[in-house]
């Protein structure tokens, strides 16, 4: 009888580490008249190619553990040695097993006692460990910028999620699924090989586990998730979600705010900076969880009545969230972010003091953070600090009022107390 040239693809019902399951499945296919044609390498999606062959029912398949640590030369030597015993190399299952076939009914199985198979799987165990470590290192590297924030400043991390909800939540969700799929594959192989070895060590052959097509399911999940990631990135590119709107000036500040002119000392005059590069642009952002996010700045040279000139700046941020609980999270995040920024600034300052600022005292001696109780606000934190080249302290208020969070950053001649008082009144009216 002739072999059928058409290939038949069949889904692998068990995990790739499952020695007994794979071997039993290959032999079942042989009994049903299907000879294994090839096992896909990198393009493996959970199914393999068989060819209908009338001789197949007389064929037996056996697996030989290889592990990635075994070299190609050793694999070829093994194949040549096994040939003398009637076993012929067919293909390899990834980095785990070599597949051998025999048509000789008298040929002994490759492994005739469990202990020797246990020893043969020693390299696989090492490979499985290496594989898991590599996956974990990969995760650590791709999220290297997030780990410090997540572990040391989690409140700031949560705030970023709220402020960029429609970008970060789906993106992290998709990446998390991809990472969990990859890492769980490595861990699954490690545990599976370990379990198989435990049976073998006790002198028992590992049982054939139940069939649930894990390899194809994993491929499907990865493909769907990767597809979702691509679509999401395309959506981000074309939807304009990533673009921050630049505001032309205070006429577009549709949130409770104060202006620099209102908080200057009596009789002082302001010459505002013409060059916006001295200040950052006024911007408006929004997200699903925080639909209003303003970040604005004013600054200039202030001349007091006595003729002294002071560089003065007033930065304001305003966030309105969908609920007070979200606002609370943003408030905590803002406080943490400010503390974090100052901490990094301090470290940088101290590292460079001996070489660059040897004649200056430690600028952070005067830095203070305090929680303040203030009528009309649910929370208020005040940061004060003064750099050694400044004549006035910087005062930053971070406050919470219901669903709103604000940051009021005053420097130079701006009266921070007055600014806070005015802002709280306007928040109350909003």
């Amino acid at each position, binding site marked *: 009888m002739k072999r059928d040239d058409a290939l038949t693809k069949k889904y692998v019902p068990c995990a790739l580490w499952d020695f007994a399951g794979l071997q039993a499945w290959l032999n079942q296919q042989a009994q049903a008249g299907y000879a294994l044609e090839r096992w896909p390498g990198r393009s493996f999606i959970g199914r393999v190619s068989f060819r209908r062959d009338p001789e197949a029912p007389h064929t037996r398949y056996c697996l*030989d553990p290889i592990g990635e640590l075994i070299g190609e030369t050793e694999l070829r030597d093994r194949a040549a040695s096994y040939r003398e*015993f009637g076993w012929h190399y067919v293909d390899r299952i990834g980095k785990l097993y070599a597949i051998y076939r025999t048509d000789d009914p008298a040929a002994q199985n*490759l492994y005739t*006692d469990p202990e*020797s198979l246990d020893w*043969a799987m020693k390299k696989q165990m090492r490979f499985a460990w290496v594989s898991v470590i590599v996956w974990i290192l990969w995760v650590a590297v791709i999220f290297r910028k997030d780990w410090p924030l997540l572990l040391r400043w989690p409140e700031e991390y949560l705030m970023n999620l709220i402020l960029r909800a429609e970008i970060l939540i789906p993106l992290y969700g998709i990446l998390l699924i991809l990472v969990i799929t990859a890492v769980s594959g490595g861990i699954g192989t490690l545990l599976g090989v370990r379990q198989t070895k435990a049976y073998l060590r006790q002198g028992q052959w590992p049982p054939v586990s139940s069939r649930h097509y894990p390899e194809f399911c994993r491929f499907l999940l990865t493909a769907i998730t990767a597809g979702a990631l691509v679509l999401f990135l395309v959506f981000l590119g074309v939807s304009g979600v990533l673009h921050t709107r630049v505001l032309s000036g205070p006429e577009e500040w549709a949130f409770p705010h104060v202006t620099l002119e209102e908080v200057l000392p009596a009789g002082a005059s302001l010459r505002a900076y013409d060059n916006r590069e001295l200040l950052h642009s006024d911007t408006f952002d929004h997200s699903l969880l925080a639909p209003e996010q303003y970040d604005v700045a004013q600054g200039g040279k202030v001349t007091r009545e006595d003729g002294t000139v002071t560089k003065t700046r007033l930065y304001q941020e305003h966030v309105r969230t969908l609920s007070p609980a979200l606002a609370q999270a943003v408030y905590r995040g803002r406080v943490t972010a400010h503390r974090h920024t100052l901490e990094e600034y301090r470290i940088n300052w101290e590292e460079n003091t001996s070489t660059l600022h040897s004649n200056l005292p430690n600028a952070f001696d005067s830095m203070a953070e305090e929680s303040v109780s203030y009528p009309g606000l649910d929370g208020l934190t005040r940061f004060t600090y003064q750099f050694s080249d400044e004549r006035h302290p910087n005062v930053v208020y971070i406050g919470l009022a219901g669903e709103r969070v604000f940051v009021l950053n005053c420097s130079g001649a701006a009266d921070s107390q007055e600014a806070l008082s005015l802002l709280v009144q306007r928040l109350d009216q909003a």
Partner: protein
Amino acid sequence: MGDGKHSPLTEPMLYVLMAFLRQERCGTEITQFVSDKTGGRVRLGPGTLYTLLGKFQEEKLIEETQVDGRKRTYRLTHLGRTVYEEEVERLRSCLRDAEEELL
């Protein structure tokens, strides 16, 4: 003296070491020896055989003496003989105990 870490040997291990007592052998000759010696009772698949040979070589119980193309021949080392003799002594002792109980 053996270090005791090899004891007890499994049946296939004992017979593979036994195959080298009188002469150097290659893989097929070992399988034939074990089959003849045990009347087919102990089966030695090629995976089992080459895994054991690899393990014994790693543990310096045997050493390679000749490579003729694909054919590799091995012989027992002094340590291998010691380990074998200790295992035989252990089995002899077991057998003695077992027989005493039968009397």
